[in-house]
């Protein structure tokens, strides 16, 4: 009996460890009290004040747009890079190319952020673009980081036996372009979608890189929240956290559904 109960207990402990802080935050979002960690009865007042907080809304809207833009750009660049790594075989410099992409993943964000800042400042001094720092520079910096993640996801997806599927398409009369459009692209699509979501989340979450490359015009949500933290927390942040959590859950659910559809399709392919 004891041994049977040990597993559920460990599971419960693990889940509590993971989710207790998050649930606490969501709980306090519905608290009427002005101190963000004190229960003052159920209330939606902080959602109302949040809705009236134009700076927060604006930052959230900017973050969404930057994240969407960065994810799209990252998917384009990273998709091509991942395809090249998986398909072009042992081209000259492949190992170096792969290492350069991988390095972006492990480089501390502080270093990436500083490097980006130096690049943008130097570029502005040299060619006058980008003029100042703001949403555009944050978007470019996030796209750079996101592209590396997308490349890895796409490469992993294509590492299977899809080369043979392209050959089968060509054998049946499809030129390289038609084979890519009708076979490779549809098979890459779930990886591209997953990569886009990953890049979107990375951008939406990012505080460190954005702190370096965002000017006064490019205050993203994490940057604003972090600066608000220094002035003193209000339960509005809790409310905001609850909303973001709901959105994130939506995204994760979507990604899981996508991957499962893909898995079911590929499930019978075994060997």
């Amino acid at each position, binding site marked *: 009996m004891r041994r049977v109960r040990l597993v559920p207990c460990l599971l419960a402990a693990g889940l509590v460890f993971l989710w207790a802080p998050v649930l606490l935050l969501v709980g306090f979002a519905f608290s009427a009290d002005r101190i963000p960690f004190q229960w003052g009865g159920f209330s939606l007042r902080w959602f109302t004040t949040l809705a009236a907080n134009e700076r927060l809304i604006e930052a959230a809207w900017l973050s969404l747009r930057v994240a969407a833009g960065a994810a799209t750009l990252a998917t384009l660049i990273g998709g091509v890079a991942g395809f090249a790594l998986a398909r072009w075989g042992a081209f000259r410099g492949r190992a170096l190319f792969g290492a350069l992409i991988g390095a972006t993943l492990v480089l501390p964000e502080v270093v990436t952020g500083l490097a980006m800042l130096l690049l943008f400042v130097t570029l502005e001094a040299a060619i006058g673009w980008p003029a100042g720092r703001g949403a555009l520079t944050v978007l470019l910096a996030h796209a750079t980081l996101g592209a590396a993640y997308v490349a890895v996801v796409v490469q992993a997806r294509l590492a299977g036996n899809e080369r043979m599927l392209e050959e089968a398409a060509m054998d049946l009369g499809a030129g390289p372009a038609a084979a890519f459009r009708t076979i490779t692209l549809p*098979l890459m699509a779930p990886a591209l979608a997953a990569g886009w979501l990953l890049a979107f989340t990375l951008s939406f979450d990012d505080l460190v890189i954005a702190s370096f490359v965002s000017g006064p015009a490019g205050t993203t949500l994490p940057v604003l929240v972090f600066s608000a933290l220094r002035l003193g927390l209000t339960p509005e942040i809790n409310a905001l956290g609850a909303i973001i959590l709901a959105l994130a859950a939506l995204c994760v659910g979507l990604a899981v559904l996508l991957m499962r559809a893909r898995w079911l399709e590929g499930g019978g*392919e075994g060997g």
Partner: protein
Amino acid sequence: MAPLLLEVRGLSRRFGAAVALAPLDLAIEAGEFFALLGGSGSGKSTLLRLIAGLEAPDGGSLLLEGRDITRDPPWARPIHMMFQSYALFPHMSVAENIGYGLRRAGVRGAEQARRIDEVLALVRLKGFGARRPHQISGGQKQRVALARSLVMRPKLLLLDEPLAALDAGLREQTGFELRALQRATGAAFVMVTHDQGEALALADRIAVLEGGRLMQVGAPADVYARPASAFVARFLGAANVVEAAHLSLSPAEPGAAAYALRPERIRLTPNGATTGANAIAGHVRDVAFRGDATLFVVALDGGGELRVMVPADDPMPIMGERVALAWDADDLVPLAA
């Protein structure tokens, strides 16, 4: 002789320093079932991919009905291939898979649907058109892959290990179906296989390859009865290869250094005495029951061993028992090397 369909002239391919295919000549006749037989690394798959256009040769040429197709890309060749693990498109239904080549060729609408139905009936998969590849069994996938190639009505169909991924029970039946389809469509089939039983059972002619070289080409019965070399003898029938210097042989065709001696051609007598040439004594080292016959490995008194196949009704020796072996002079087939 049937008209020539495909001519392979001095075709060769190397991967870096490794020779995958030494310059090789081969002719495939229209409407024949041809098997390329060899172990891994024999070059059989490379040859198939060269014919399909999926690899470019380093030298030599390919002629299809007299027309040089050596430089044609795979999508421009009227040759189609069934891939070893079928390569069905997982994001398309069975009907979409089969219609893929037709759509590329501009066959659409009712005509496309009619040809898909026709070929589905041919491979006994009527009503399976809407299924996805992951929803059907391995044997059904094999038939979809076949249908996808056959719907293009090729004069030459290439099959890469068409039966290898199937269960043993399904293999024989599917082999016969393959044979029947080949006759019904009139297309020439070129099948790659590592299984000599498959090649001997299905093909009109077989080519044995080893190390990128063609060892022997001929009808299965001829190649089996008269292997040209020790390699072919061993590979085809698990025949005994005996050296003239080692045993007291009295072959019908003297002069060769080695002879092939098939296990079922050797007479085995328990506790028997040996007389004269083409006979030798030994003791049973291993026994393997094979249903209709039993295989004995006999350790010879002078060293070495022979494999002997004894029909089920004959008297059987037991392990370690002394036996006498004998054979006819005609059964010693001279080998080139």
